[in-house]
């Protein structure tokens, strides 16, 4: 399937960012959303362009590292699912997808789609979760 992406690119915390458009022609519906970004980054790297920075770790829905704000919703269209467990079959051929970082004053953007979550870590460390 063909996918048009509008991705938030921001060099670092102190630089203004903007949405940049990319087109991917060969997306498989079985890819996870993050694998689709791997494909994008592969092609950017080969062209010598800076790949998109985004958080991820386990890629099996366990760790909570993956974030992304997709079409105005945290983790995209599904409810109760992480971004790494979102697959391209949830989208249609020719769709335009807007991908932004999670925007909140407490979580400044480090680069592109990666934000500084240490404020949240501090809440957990002080026992502020699940109590």
């Amino acid at each position, binding site marked *: 399937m063909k996918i048009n992406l509008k991705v938030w690119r921001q*060099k*670092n915390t102190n630089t203004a960012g903007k949405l940049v458009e990319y087109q991917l022609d060969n997306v498989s*519906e*079985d890819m*996870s959303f993050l694998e689709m970004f*791997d494909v994008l*980054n*592969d092609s950017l*790297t*080969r062209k*010598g*362009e*800076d*790949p998109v*920075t985004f958080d991820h770790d386990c890629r099996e*829905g366990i760790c909570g590292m993956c974030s992304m704000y997709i079409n105005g919703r945290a983790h995209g269209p599904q409810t109760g*699912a992480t971004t790494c*467990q979102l*697959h391209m*079959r949830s989208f249609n051929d020719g769709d335009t997808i807007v991908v932004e970082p999670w925007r909140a004053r407490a979580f400044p953007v*480090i*680069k592109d789609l*990666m934000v500084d979550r240490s404020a949240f870590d501090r809440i957990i460390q002080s026992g502020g979760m699940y109590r």
Partner: protein
Amino acid sequence: MSKTGLAVYLDFADAIKRDGRKTIEAKYGNLFEMYEKITGENPYELPMMIYPAVHYTMGGLWVDYNLMTTIPGLYALGEANFSDHGANRLGASALMQGLADGYFVIPYTIGDYLATIGPADKIPVDSPAFKEAEQKVHAQVEQLLAIKGTRPVDELHKELGHIMWEYCGMSRTAEGLKLAKQKIQALKKEFWTNVKVLGDSEEMNQALEQASRVADFIELGELMVDDALNREESCGGHFREEHQTPDGEALRDDANFAYVAAWEYQGEGKPEVLNKEVLEFENVKLTQRSYK
């Protein structure tokens, strides 16, 4: 045949007919949901595609009973160490180790260590050991950025994964492992001469981070292959096809292999040295495990 061409099928149809969908749902509901998310197929109606995946290292850093590594003051907890699981940490069994180490061991042992060094004995950052380590990291970072090859890190990472998946999974043969060793050595050469890492070291640079990890994974992958070649028996997650019973079960060789293989690093490019830590069983007898 599935699209990947790799899967065999696990069909729950008979179990659902026998026990009812409710029972299966209660037992496996969350797994079925995960499966459907990943594949887009409903496992209550279609057989599931399965595959015996690579099961990681089945080991980790050597630690003593207090969980300290061979570097004084450096502790390794949970799955990062080798200590509790032996040849099999399948399923979520390694969670036990994370919990046991974190709750029951480290709170006592780390305090003991800290008490021996005292608050004033901080390691100064101008100590020769610190300087040497820092310098090494800098040199490696500069080296990775200077290669300016043609192949993205992720592609080489995946290539390593495929080698391990193919030849060093649950089921291995001497022939396959020898081939894997050659392939990993060739990949290592390719990596250090043709990897493409953009950007610099003064900014957030995920490709650079990944490259540093992949450099480690190449070393670790080769060590796993060496270890699997050395162990001429089948045991836990290590099934050497040459060593099986007539009906296809794992065949251990306790007379020669009832030991933990602790491989000792000898420096860049030198083969690791095998230290055998003999396993002694005082209260249980070693027996054949049957999955039937």
